């Protein structure tokens, strides 16, 4: 493989602790190495430019059946957006639900190299892997959903942690999954009866268990196994005014539990798209409770969060939170897709237009940014849009602009129709903080890599890490306009993925060697769980076990992370 030396760039790297000093980064055999270790490198002159590790996204919906329902039922999302094949660059289409090809390329253009699919219905794991396989460049993994799974509900109502852990290990292996995802615990199962779980103690119909028991049990089972990532939750009551109390109650379920993982993470709970979970007030008078939420996050080291920033775009919402999507279609009267996934989960999809003329949407925009600007530790607070729910991922550079520039936020406030009411309901207008690129690198690189238990591969530029390196045409030491930030970080000048140059001079130069990460957790033999699996497949599933497991050819380039939980 070619050797590279990226010379004289302004480096922002939380792993090395470099805060914008000029430094050289060397690449050899797919890894970052000491500069003395390269003999005859190709030299990239990065003088006057910004150099960072490849971005890591902990939470996006980019592959699988509900993403594809979004693509299928929104032809208008693709209208006028096609880009024909050009050289090695394959044809691309779609805006909020882009094709797999565009997904890979657009992340690469932003300097991102690792993206986790945040909700994989186990029964449709094959479909999810097929789409990830077709997404170029990026390393990816997928989180199977567990929070409404009948096995989990039945084991955890009796607090059977060992059985839950054995089932998780089996399902991760069967679906080639990466982490334990929980969406509206209990509420999605309740939705099969037209109901929901409205707080963490609201029992799940017919299962005699509460969301609190599900969440706590899954944290304990996750730590029993010592998985790379923690339990990853989308709590109950997403999007409901006054829900911040449920969010705090959910956070508190992590108290007293210590991480048990040799992968270097410090958290036992990752709470996703917290913007949607930080609302006070009621009805149309909802308001920001970001300060209350961040007071908790800032003082509790065993939690990480991601933002879920609203970007004020037309987008496509999609979640395993079935009752929430029904609520949305009742609200905006746009088309609605709804699916039940047998014993496991459900999903809904609804298009949504976030408008600067709508007070509620403007308040949501403020809350997402407030969460970040009130944070104390940026290695525990990550930049996301819950793509595509609060906005498409291609807006990450625009969010960076808003976080880095008070002037940019002022411009957006001035564009709101109900500016004064929005300011009354939020705190953002009174915050003058401007983040720097080091903090951005913590939120988008080092932090998410550590939370995922992948700090030994991603998120930094230390020798030994994967050679995932981005060069942006942005000089932080020269005067710039807010829009220059968005422009530069939307359009990386160079990007290396595992030592392969995938973007050269702002153009896609290679389709890369994408890998799919999954976790193989070994546990003691558990005849009871295996008997339960066989029985449930015989009695309830529409497919047999043989048609369930994700086998080799779905992952042509797997990267297996081994965990030994036998004892």
């Amino acid at each position, binding site marked *: 493989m070619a050797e590279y030396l990226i010379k004289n760039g302004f480096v922002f790297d939380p792993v090395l602790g470099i805060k914008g000093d000029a430094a050289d980064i060397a690449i050899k055999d797919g890894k970052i190495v000491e500069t003395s270790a390269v003999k005859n490198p190709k030299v990239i002159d990065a003088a006057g430019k910004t150099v960072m590790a490849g971005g890591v996204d902990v939470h996006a919906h980019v592959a699988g059946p509900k993403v594809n329902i979004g693509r299928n039922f929104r*032809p208008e999302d693709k209208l006028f957006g096609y880009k024909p094949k050009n050289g090695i660059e394959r044809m691309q289409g779609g805006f909020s639900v882009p094709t797999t090809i565009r997904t890979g390329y657009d992340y690469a253009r932003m300097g991102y190299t690792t993206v986790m699919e945040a909700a994989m219905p186990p029964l449709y794991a094959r479909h999810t892997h097929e789409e990830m396989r077709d997404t170029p460049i990026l390393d990816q993994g997928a989180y199977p959903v567990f929070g409404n799974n009948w096995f989990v509900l039945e084991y955890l109502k009796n607090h059977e942690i060992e059985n839950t852990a054995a089932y998780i290990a089996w399902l991760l292996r069967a679906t080639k999954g990466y982490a334990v995802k929980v969406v509206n615990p209990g509420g999605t199962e309740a939705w099969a009866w037209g109901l929901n779980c409205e707080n963490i103690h609201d029992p799940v119909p017919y299962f005699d268990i509460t969301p609190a028991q599900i969440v706590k049990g899954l944290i304990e089972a996750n730590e029993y196994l010592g998985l790379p990532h923690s339990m990853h939750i989308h709590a109950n009551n997403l999007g409901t005014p006054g829900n911040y109390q449920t969010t705090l109650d959910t956070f508190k379920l992590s108290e007293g539990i210590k991480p048990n993982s040799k992968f270097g993470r410090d958290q036992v709970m990752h709470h996703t798209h917290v913007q949607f979970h930080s609302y006070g007030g009621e009805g149309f008078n909802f308001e920001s409770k970001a300060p209350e939420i961040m007071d908790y996050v800032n003082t509790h080291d065993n939690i990480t969060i991601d933002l879920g920033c609203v970007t004020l775009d037309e987008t496509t919402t999609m979640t395993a939170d079935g009752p929430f999507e029904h609520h949305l279609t009742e609200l905006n009267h746009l088309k609605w897709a709804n699916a039940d996934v047998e014993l496991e989960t459900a999903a809904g999809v609804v298009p949504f237009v976030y408008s600067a003329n709508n007070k509620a949407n403007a308040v949501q925009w403020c809350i997402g940014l407030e969460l970040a600007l009130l944070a104390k530790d940026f290695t525990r607070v990550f930049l996301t849009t819950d793509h595509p729910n609060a906005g498409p991922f291609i807006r990450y550079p625009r969010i960076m602009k808003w976080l880095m520039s008070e002037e940019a936020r002022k411009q957006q406030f001035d564009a709101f129709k109900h500016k004064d009411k929005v300011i009354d309901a939020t705190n953002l207008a009174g915050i003058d903080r401007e983040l720097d690129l080091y903090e951005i690198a913590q939120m988008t690189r080092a932090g998410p890599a550590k939370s995922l238990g992948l700090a030994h591969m991603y998120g930094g530029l230390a020798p030994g890490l994967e050679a995932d390196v981005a060069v942006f045409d942005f000089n932080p030491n020269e005067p710039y306009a807010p829009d220059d930030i968005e422009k530069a970080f939307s359009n990386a000048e160079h990007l290396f993925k595992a030592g392969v140059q995938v973007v050269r001079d702002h153009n896609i130069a290679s389709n890369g060697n994408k890998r799919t990460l999954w976790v193989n957790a070994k546990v003691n033999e558990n005849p009871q769980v295996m008997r339960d699996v066989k029985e449930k497949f015989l009695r309830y599933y529409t497919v047999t076990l043989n048609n369930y497991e994700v086998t080799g050819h779905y992952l042509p380039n797997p990267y297996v992370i081994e965990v030994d939980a036998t004892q």
Partner: protein
Amino acid sequence: METVTLTIKNQPELYLEADNITPDAFAGKKAEEIAALHVYIGREQHQLGDFFEVSGGAGATPEETKVVVNGDLSRVKYIGMKMTGGEVVVNSNADMYVGAWMQGGKITVNGNVDAFAGTGMKGGEIVVNGNAGNYLGAAYRGDWRGMADGKITVAGNAGSDLGTFMNGGEIVIGGDVDVHVATHAEGGKIVIKGNAKSRLGGQMVGGEIYVLGNIDVMMPGFAYREDVDIEMDGIKGRFALYEGDLGERHRKRKGQLIYAKLYQQIGA
């Protein structure tokens, strides 16, 4: 106003995607520059001049530009797409998407238009002196934003799915229409001077349909309210008023539920 005349000289073997045939694309250009504008056949890019003889010249702005297109255009799509002003005269039949997403100006077709004419139209006027195909003045597939403003007049008949998701503006059909009229509409006005078949106003929550001829089958979601006298745009007579679609949600204004209205002529 300056005039550009296009005369087809080579018929495309397949279909020509000619969204550059607009006063907007032509404005400020000479004949040679207009002939160099691109057209597509499938994924192949060609020049307008490969298929058309171009004469005359454009005005400085779309508003000062008139485009006359001659010859058989039944394999030419997207004439007048997204135009904002000026005039287009088509002296033939034209293929799909005439005046789609049009915002202003006027298109006159002295022949028939195929499907999707006036898709997502926002303003301006389309006059078809022949017949129109399916999905006239409808929303793009999947979209909920149909015709918002402007006027479409068809001298002859129109096909199915007329005015789907219509929100505003007016469509007048001189002859008969096929099934599905104003499906999902939330506003606008459709006048059918001939006969209609069935499924008028399915899931319609606002707007008006006038039918001067027969309706084969009325939607069960429309209820007869009363007989009314109407005089508008040269139409005069007694009409039966139906309201619907009762199976749908309906907005309220000043405490009153708003329904879509369907008027059928019952007498002079």
